[in-house]
């Protein structure tokens, strides 16, 4: 069976065996895309897993009658999921070696600066904050390597990153739980921003589903969400200070 026949038969029958056949046929796309995004601080295997799951979901959503080839359809879907994963993993801590330590500092500084200044900071701004050169920041973006939150913070100590970070996170959660602060922060949001918050955090829909409901692209949802969260964090920070 060719690509179109396979998908049509799967849509007709819902036969999982056919779905599996399709997924196996296109797993190379997941592998290829995972390799293209490797080296940003997340292991290839993790990215491959994310990409493969996005592929399975994509098989269910793909409609061959729309005339777009499956690889063309699935590439942005997988790319979107991988980028979501990077964002979700932004709190992981990097190994305390020179480059990886700097990568970790860069991420932290980038998050802080984004909240302070309301935009995605440049390498120059990050370099100034960390007291390193722009070149170091750019070079470190090429390096990889992450470690689990359960790893010890150094070779000499058994304390884990998770234990060290817990107290700081608890403070954030407490603030977030304060209804008054959140409501205050939400004042002035546009209708689409409120819709995004409702879909993503009220109904806990995926970015893809949110994009479909809002009639926009997943990339748009991703960008809007990032900006919105930065603004809310800033507002909550001001409220708490």
């Amino acid at each position, binding site marked *: 069976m060719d690509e179109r026949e396979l998908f049509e038969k799967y849509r007709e029958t819902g036969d999982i065996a056919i779905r599996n056949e399709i997924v196996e046929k296109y797993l190379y796309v997941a592998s290829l895309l995972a390799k*293209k995004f490797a080296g940003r601080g997340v292991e290839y295997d993790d990215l491959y897993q994310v990409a493969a799951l996005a592929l399975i979901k994509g098989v269910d959503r793909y409609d061959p009658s729309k005339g777009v080839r499956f*690889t063309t359809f699935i*590439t*942005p879907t997988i*790319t979107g999921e991988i980028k979501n994963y*990077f964002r979700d993993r932004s709190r992981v801590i990097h190994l305390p070696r020179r480059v990886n330590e700097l990568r970790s500092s860069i991420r932290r500084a980038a998050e802080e600066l984004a909240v302070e200044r309301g935009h995605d900071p*440049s390498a120059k701004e*990050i370099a100034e904050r960390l007291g390193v050169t722009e070149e170091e920041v750019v070079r470190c973006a090429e390096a990889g390597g992450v470690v689990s939150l359960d790893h010890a913070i150094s070779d000499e100590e058994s304390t884990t990153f998770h234990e060290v970070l817990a107290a700081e996170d608890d403070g954030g959660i407490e603030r977030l739980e304060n209804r008054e602060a959140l409501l205050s922060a939400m004042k002035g949001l546009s209708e689409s921003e409120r819709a995004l918050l409702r879909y993503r955090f009220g109904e806990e829909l995926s970015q893809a589903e949110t994009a479909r409901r809002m009639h926009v692209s997943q990339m748009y949802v991703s960008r809007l969400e990032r900006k919105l969260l930065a603004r809310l964090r800033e507002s909550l920070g001001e409220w708490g200070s």
Partner: protein
Amino acid sequence: MKELLRIGLKLEDELFTTVRLATGGVCSLAGLGLDDSEDCKVCVTEGLLLLMHAGYASAEIAVSERDGGLFFSLTGSEEGCAASSDADEISEALLAALAEDALLTRSDGRISCVTFSFGK
């Protein structure tokens, strides 16, 4: 439109890391965020792969400031061996997903120029 960088290179995998580093540098100069810079590097690599598979042995990359962002133009310049790959379709979709205004120009039925923008 102010040109910031122009590089001519042989289309060989070994040189792509150098191009990625140069791309990261120019993104930094232009004040792009880290995420955009990383996406930009992916697009430059994909564009060069498309030109390589279209049969070019070398390419020229020109980066300019335009509308407050960066405009990339990748042009094939020296004849080599065409070796179209199944992955080309994915490269095209990836460019469309990551970059603004990704445009593939074809001449004689093959891709000869790839342009896209970031940070507008």
